[in-house]
């Protein structure tokens, strides 16, 4: 595996720029993150970041909404933007030759958004409709609700916001959110693909050097939600969400925790897929995933199944989660490593995947890992390391949420 060199630039105002040139591609991708996500929503105004993320594209400098979008479309930028819990992000992929022009547009969007008053209500209306769509899709809703219960606020707040929060939001509060949280300090720009790092460095200096930092405000935390809960819902299937504590990406044992979840749910030979779907035919969809924040993490598990078979499905899921620390086969570990290594290599065919990986590394670790380094950590994993990790941190804060016609028992 070759190790591409990542060029790093740090502006005096606290903005970090990471550039990974890639050969054999025509495209370039970028990911520009500002620490302005929903964890920074003002009290009782959950949805502020979501609205800001959308409103920022509705006008910049002397451009109106149509001018912004048309310019991006003319450059062929495949873009998406919006708020997650931690960041408001602007992501795009395009032909490398158009990158400089696109970055100029984004500089204008993030530095001089007009946040036009006439667009405020339409954007809030769009945000409310996103909440409606989650209410209508039980698979999505159960995970949103599970996260509300297994994380403390503000990390439990949905990035999409809440009806109540959106109802009380004003344009002034959204503009305040921009002023306090969209700033160069803590911002990360990752770029990967057919790019010249020197050109990027000069351009970024020109676009962002004179942007002054803003003091960051501390987060207000609270206590987490209930461990067992049921949401009555008229549906054909019962949705099951299970969560428990794990360790974040920055933790030295992270790869052991990652491997444990991979053995539970990575690939079709994993335990949950085999025991719940293949051997018993209990459901179509079952999975577990390691969800990591900067200093805390959860394993989130899901299954959707018809109501009569929901109790058995939950029983089997919990049994598999509980027996993980009783033993792992070397072959299981080998499969999880093979999947990871293949995935690392294939990442080099996607400029978007690399750009996202650069910014994620920087946020979690304060540095960029090389593909060789990750591969080394994966190859060094032993069954004992994973078991030690599992045994040293037995299932803590097990949270079970069901959504459907009837509640289930945790046995």
């Amino acid at each position, binding site marked *: 595996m070759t190790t591409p060199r990542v060029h790093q630039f740090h502006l005096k105002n606290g903005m970090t720029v990471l550039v990974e040139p890639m050969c054999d591609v025509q495209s370039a991708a970028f990911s520009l993150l500002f620490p302005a996500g929903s964890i920074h929503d003002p009290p009782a105004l959950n949805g502020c970041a979501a609205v800001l993320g959308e409103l920022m594209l509705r006008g910049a400098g002397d451009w109106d909404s149509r001018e912004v979008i048309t310019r991006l479309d003319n450059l062929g930028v495949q873009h998406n933007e919006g708020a997650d819990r931690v960041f408001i992000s602007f992501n795009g992929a395009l032909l490398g030759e158009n990158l400089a022009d696109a970055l100029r547009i984004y500089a204008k969007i993030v530095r001089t958004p007009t946040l036009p008053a006439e667009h405020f209500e339409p954007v809030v209306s769009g945000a409310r409709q996103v909440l409606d769509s989650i*209410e209508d899709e039980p698979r999505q809703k159960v995970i949103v609700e599970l996260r509300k219960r297994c994380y403390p606020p503000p990390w439990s707040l949905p990035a999409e916001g809440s009806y109540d929060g959106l109802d009380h939001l004003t344009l002034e509060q959204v503009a305040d959110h921009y002023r306090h949280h969209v700033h160069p300090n803590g911002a990360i720009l990752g770029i990967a693909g057919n790019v010249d790092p020197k050109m990027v460095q000069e351009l970024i200096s020109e676009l962002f050097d004179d942007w002054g930092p803003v003091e960051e405000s501390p987060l207000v935390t609270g206590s987490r939600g209930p461990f067992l809960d049921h949401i009555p819902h008229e549906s*054909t299937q019962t949705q099951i969400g299970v969560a428990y504590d794990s360790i974040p990406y920055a933790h030295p044992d992270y790869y052991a925790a990652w491997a444990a979840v991979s053995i539970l749910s990575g690939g079709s*030979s994993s335990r949950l897929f085999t025991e719940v779907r293949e*051997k*018993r*035919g*209990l459901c179509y969809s079952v999975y577990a995933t390691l969800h990591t924040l900067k200093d805390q993490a959860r394993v989130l598990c899901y299954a*959707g199944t018809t109501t009569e078979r929901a109790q058995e499905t939950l029983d089997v899921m919990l049994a598999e989660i509980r027996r993980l620390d009783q033993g792992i086969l070397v072959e299981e570990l080998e499969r999880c490593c*093979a999947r990871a290594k293949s995935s690392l290599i294939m990442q080099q065919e996607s400029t978007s995947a690399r750009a996202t990986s650069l910014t994620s590394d920087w946020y979690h670790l304060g540095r960029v890992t090389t593909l060789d380094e990750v591969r080394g950590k994966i190859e060094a994993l032993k069954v004992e390391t994973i078991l030690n990790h599992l045994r040293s941190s037995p299932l803590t804060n097990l949270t079970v949420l069901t959504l459907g016609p009837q509640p289930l028992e945790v046995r």
Partner: protein
Amino acid sequence: MKFHQATLPNGLHVVAELSPHVHSVGMGFFVRTGSRDETAAVSGVSHFLEHMAFKGNETYSADDVNRIFDEIGARYNASTSEEITLFHAAVLPEYVPTAMGLLSGLLRPSLRTEDFDMEKKVILEEIGMYDDLPSFLAYDKAMHTHFHEHPLGQSILGSVESITRLTSDQMREYHRTHYQAGNIVLAVAGKYEWEPLWELIQRSCGEWSSGITPRDYPTPQIQTRQTVLHRPSSLQQHGMLMNTACDGTHPLRFAAELLSVIVGDDTGSRFYWNLVEPGLVESAELSYNEYDHAGAWMTYFSGEPEEAEANLQRIDKIFEAVNQRGITAEELQQAKNKVSSRIVLRSERPMGRLGSLGNNWLYRGEYRSVQDDLRDVAAVTASQISDLLHSYPLGRTTTVTIGPLESLSGSGK
């Protein structure tokens, strides 16, 4: 980048686009069968069979299939549409021989009755899952309403009743007649050499039975039809609208693709400016769907039930304006920029090329390079778009909505 094409004596078509400049290999068997090829008695069998393919054969057990794919770090899956059942995998080049053995094995499964009975439960769960997804139900109902008694209107999943009734013998018979080599295209894209690949394919697929399954092409009887599915528990109203478009071999299909971007892309389109940006819908999009000897414009929107009627009228107005006055030169250029950029981005991964390789061969019997597609997109003119709209105007002969509304104007309660 080099293109290779060959056909095994049994009729299996092989198309490969090989390049040393990528890291992986994508391969896919495109079987020319789907829900449109089913009779009512076996409704849902193509999709169920796709699941059963993973249950193994004399060489591999079901556990072996899952385990070995994971051992070689493959990204693999399968899908079933109205017309194609696709089995695909992406692997590193050193694992191509193993992956080819497994993937080709999927197309010759044992179809053991005990596996069939177990997997039937999974299929019924999948039907249950989609029953809770209104956007999927709207699609299913729209296809059924639009194509009516034409085979393209048949459900991919089948129903709880048809799946419950289906027997493993019926599935074996369906497999025997629809998985003959002449009915299959194998597409390969990525970092590999042709000679060893061709040898591998001969070894893995050379023994397959030959033959081609004929497909019926009745003319769709399209009439204005409206269906309102009342779902009081939903918050949103989902709408799916259809109209006839050109088929997958039509010379104006690139014009159709560009028109769908101009009118119904998720950003910067007429739908975006008139519906999404003002917050009148949560989403609205227009796609051009090409089929074997058929085609359709498909519009989807979701939003507040109170706005649904007005949104339908707004969509009608957008269609009317485009049908009557066409599009602007700026819109056409912008759509070309977007589509060209997407073609290049998608082509950078072998798996991104696979769909194009397989579908071009299956639908049109031709190979098209990335440059061919870019050239044809660039060559589309405003007058071709006018010609297209003249023959295939935008509209909604079919209107299906699902949500809290009990009726729409023009439809009975």
